[in-house]
Structures are given as C-alpha cells and as structure tokens.
C-alpha cells in the first residue's frame, strides 16, 4: 500500500512541496482531479457513438485488448468499431488537445503575451497550404499529412529566420514575421482553392475545419509518443519558462540564456503543433483558451500550468470530438465546435477576469 509518506516523498522529489509552510498539495490535488476528469470523459466517450454498443461489451473488448486476452470471442464488427475506430480516435483527440494546449502555454510564456496562440508563427497556414497541395496533387510518396507537416515546419523556419537580426530574435519582429508568413501561405491556399475542382475544394474546406474522421492506430503511433516526449521536456523546462516570461534581460540576470532556451522551447512547441495539425487539420481555440483556464485555476507558475494545460486540452477536445460525432447523424467538423464553445468562454474571461488575467 502506498502511504502518505511515499506520496509526500514523490512530490518532494519532483521539486514540489508537500509540507505545511509552502504546501502545494492543493494544486497537485487539482491536477489529479483533472486527470480523473479526462479518464471519466474517455470512459463515457467510448460508449457513445452512432452505432449502439452496450457498455458492458465496450469494456469487455477494451479489457481483453489491454490484457492481451483472446478477442476472438467478440464479433468482428464490434471489435473494429471499438478497438480500431473509437479507441484510437479517443487517444488521438487526447494527444492533439494536450499538444495544442501545452504549445499555447509555451508560446504565451515565451512571447510574454497572454493572447498568443500556437499558430502565431504560421504553423496552421503552412500546414493548410501543404494539405491543399497534397489534396490537389496526389503523389505516391507523400501523403497529405506529410505535405502538411513539411510546410508547417517550413513556415515557422521562414518566420524565425525572417525575424532574426544580428543574432537576436526580438518578440515583436517574430510575431510580425509570423503574420507575414501566415498571410503569404493563406494567399497561396486561396489560390489553390481557386484552381481546385469541386470535390478537391470540398476536401480542402473540410481539412481546414479539422476533424478526427480518419483517426487510425497509425496516427496514434506517430503522434502520441512525440507529444508525450514533448510534454516531458517542456514540463522539465517549466521553471525556465517562468523566467523567460519575465523578459530577456530578466532571464539573463537570473542565469537563463534567453536565445538558447527560447529556441529550444519554440522548436518543441512548434514541432508538436505541426505534428498535431498535419494529422487532424486546424483545430482552433484550444491553444489559446486552455492556458488561460489553467492559469485561472492554478496561477501562472508553469510547473503547474503545463500539466494542467495538457489535461484540460485533452479533456476539451475529447468532449468536443464526442459532440462532433454524436450531435447529429453526420459528423460536424471539430473546428466549428471548439470555436462555438470557445468564443463565449473567452468573452466571459474578458468581461469578468479581464483585468487580472490580461494585466
């Protein structure tokens, strides 16, 4: 049995405080509560769907797979729906949500601006252009996803080097460079839309709104390990992120090299964003909203914000995706739902907490 002493020791090892004076147990408790919420949402989401399968059967199938049991006792149709469609889709939603949310938290800290989102450096426009290219010109070597990923990364690299002056990348120039690169790629996407035929145009439009329709184990295998690695690295850099969010000169004073550390965290955050976006399309709002929500709950310390963000992003996309596939008889693109639910939330933040959140 794990005793309280063990728990306290683990908490202390991680650099958090378990003891009276400086206790951070309330915040740690909230993070575990969020973890519980994600699991609960996952459990409910698995049961819901267009095809009605009993709760019992869903969990029997899952249990058998997870314990390497004999799955031949379950009908092939049920097995496919649960294990090959719903479960990977759930994992993908969790990974994408988590990835976008922590990337948002990182960008907001590094850019010292609570209104920044992970697409600020042109990732989404780059990915959109790549995907549109992939849709218009099918090739054997590159899938739509690979096209999207290549151009998403290219866009950010462009923006970064465009903003680099004499070995420094000031935040304002970086944001402007992102806007420039973003608008160039958006124009190119419009051009591709213009020359596309009707069916390709429809596909491009759907891709731009994002969705998990084609989620498969292959996607999960590609994305999830990346996101987990990215999450662990960013979490371990959380204290440095706090320092970076104080500004470049402050960071230098406190012994954190701003150029080096900014490049590292921006590269990781962009990498996981580009990965996520190229697999599922442009999912709006998660990266902007979740960091705010986490800060409201736990304060601005990134040691708590990063894990909380991951869980809240995962939770939010899980809910949105479940709504997307159950609300109507046909699927609704998830970008529509995240925006419809997200906009009123930001409105609430602005009107009620504007001062304390936005400074």
């Amino acid at each position: 049995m794990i005793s309280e002493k063990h728990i306290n020791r683990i908490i202390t090892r991680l650099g958090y405080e378990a003891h009276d004076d400086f206790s951070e147990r309330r915040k740690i408790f909230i993070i575990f509560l969020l973890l519980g919420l994600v699991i609960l949402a996952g459990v409910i989401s698995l049961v819901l769907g267009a095809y009605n399968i009993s709760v019992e059967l869903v969990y029997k199938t899952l249990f058998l797979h997870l314990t390497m049991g004999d799955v031949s006792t379950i009908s092939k149709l049920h097995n496919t729906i649960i294990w090959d469609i719903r479960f990977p889709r759930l994992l993908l939603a969790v990974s994408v949500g988590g990835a976008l949310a922590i990337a948002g938290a990182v960008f907001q800290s590094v850019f010292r601006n609570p209104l920044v989102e992970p697409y600020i450096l042109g990732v989404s426009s780059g990915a959109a252009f790549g995907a549109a290219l992939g849709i218009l010109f099918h090739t054997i070597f590159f899938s739509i996803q690979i096209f999207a990923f290549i151009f998403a990364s290219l866009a950010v690299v462009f923006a970064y080097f465009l903003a680099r002056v004499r070995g420094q990348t000031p935040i304002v120039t970086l944001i402007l460079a992102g806007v420039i690169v973003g608008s160039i790629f958006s124009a190119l996407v419009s051009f591709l839309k213009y020359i596309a035929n009707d069916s390709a145009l429809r596909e491009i439009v759907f891709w731009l709104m994002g969705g998990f329709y084609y989620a498969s184990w292959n996607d999960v295998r590609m994305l999830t390990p990346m996101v987990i690695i990215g999450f662990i690295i960013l979490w371990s850099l959380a204290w440095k992120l706090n320092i970076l969010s104080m500004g470049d000169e402050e960071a230098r004073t406190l012994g954190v090299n701003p150029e080096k550390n900014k490049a590292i965290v921006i590269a990781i955050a962009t990498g996981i964003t580009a990965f996520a976006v190229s697999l599922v399309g442009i999912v709006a709002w998660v990266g902007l909203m979740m960091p705010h929500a986490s800060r409201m709950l736990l304060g601005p310390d990134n040691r708590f914000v990063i894990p909380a963000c991951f869980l809240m992003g995962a939770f939010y996309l899980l809910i949105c995706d479940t709504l997307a596939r159950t609300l109507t008889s046909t699927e609704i693109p998830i970008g529509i739902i995240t925006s419809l639910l997200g906009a009123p939330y930001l409105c609430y933040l602005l009107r009620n907490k504007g001062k304390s959140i936005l400074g």
Partner: protein
Amino acid sequence: MLHISDLSFRYAQKPVLSDVSFSVEPGQLCGLFGPNGCGKTTLFKCCLRFLPIEQGNIRMNSTDVSHRSVEELAKTVAYVPQEHKPPFPYLSREVVLMGRTPHIKGFFGIKRQDKEIARDAMDQLGILDIADEPYNQLSGGQRQMVLMARAIAQDTPLLFLDEPTSALDFQNQMKIWGLMEDIVAEGKTILACSHDPNHVAWFCDKVIVLSNNGILAQGEPDSVISENTLDLIYQNTCSVCSAGGVPMVMPRTVAARMVA
C-alpha cells in the same frame, strides 16, 4: 571585485559611454551618480552583457565577463532593474524565488531550502505581508522591494542596483540603504546608482560621478560630492552645507533661507 577599463559604448550613432574606467573593491558600497541620460543604466547593461560593448574590458572577480556564460554571470552578479512589470500575475514570493534560479539544478530542482532563503529575504525587507499578492498588481515601490528581495535571495558577491530607492517612501529608502550597508558588511560588493546626492554622500564608501562626457570625478564621497562637481552637472543649483559635520546638499534657493 569589479574592474572596468576604457569602456565605450554607443547606441547607433549616439555615443553614451566613452573611456570609462574605475574599479570597486570587495566590501565596498559604491555609488554611481550623474544627471539623467548620462549612461548609468547603460553602464549596468554593458557590465551584464545585455549590450555589446564597443571597446574596453570589464572584469569581475578578475575574470573578463566576455568569457563567461549567462549561467556563470548570474552566480556572480545580481541586478535590480529600475522598473519591470511582467504580463503574468506571479505571486511576489514566486518572483523572489526566481532569484534562486542560478543555484538550482535537476528536474525542477527547487528545494525547500531555496524557498526558505526566499522567505528570509522577504522577511529581511519586511514585505512578508505581500508575499501572496500578485507581483504585477503591486505599486511601483512594492515591486522595487520585491526585486530587492530577489537580488538578496540570489546571494551573489556583487550586486548592481539601478536606482533602488527611486519609488520608495522615506522610511523604505532608509531601510534599503541600511540593508545595503549590512550587505557590504558581509563582504559583498554593491554598485548602486542614485539621484539623491545626500544619499550618496551619507551612505556610500566610494562615489563615481558620471557625466555625458565620461567620468567627472571619483573617490571618497566627502571629496567628490562638492559644490564644484555638483555645479558642473547641475548648473549651479546646489549648495553643500554642513549640519554638525554631516554634509548636506540642498538647493541654493533653500540654502539662501538659512540663518547664518
């Protein structure tokens, strides 16, 4: 502790520092004094390598700063900037704890000991009551006190303080100067700039007077804070009197009211 020789710096076409040379010995409280825009903050920023120097060299602890990494430099020198406001509502105690960053290692590496040091630093300044308030919503003076606590928590042999008392009330100004005297008594070194000639004259061991054309005078406060020097930088507005042996700088217009 700090040796600067022939330091020059210019912003684009505008020269700010030219051929500045001075040194501060360990355990000294050195005041940096001069009119607005003469380059006091720029001097700090050059020493901290925020700005690339044009020529000259800066040595701390007998090592040239240009050979030192950001991480090493932060263990040698702490800096209290004039004004600083982050966009996120970190609590004051978190800001003070950030001062421990150069000393921490590992995953997060923040130990209980670091938090205690941060708390003690706040206690020393008497600001424990604002420990749990968001730093960016405090008044300018309170923020200055928090940054001072952060510099103390950083525990470096050298401290650069850029107008540490500019936004403080009288009591807190005296508290900070008293604290600075305590810090140098521990063997640490402070370079602080101030606009109050009295403070410099009363509390510093050494004064460097900077003007737009480089160093105007340096040495013991009694000899440096003289009517001659002040006339040069303030265009004949000050008069140096003596209040029972203690030097007292006051405006000429006020000094004229004194009963002989």
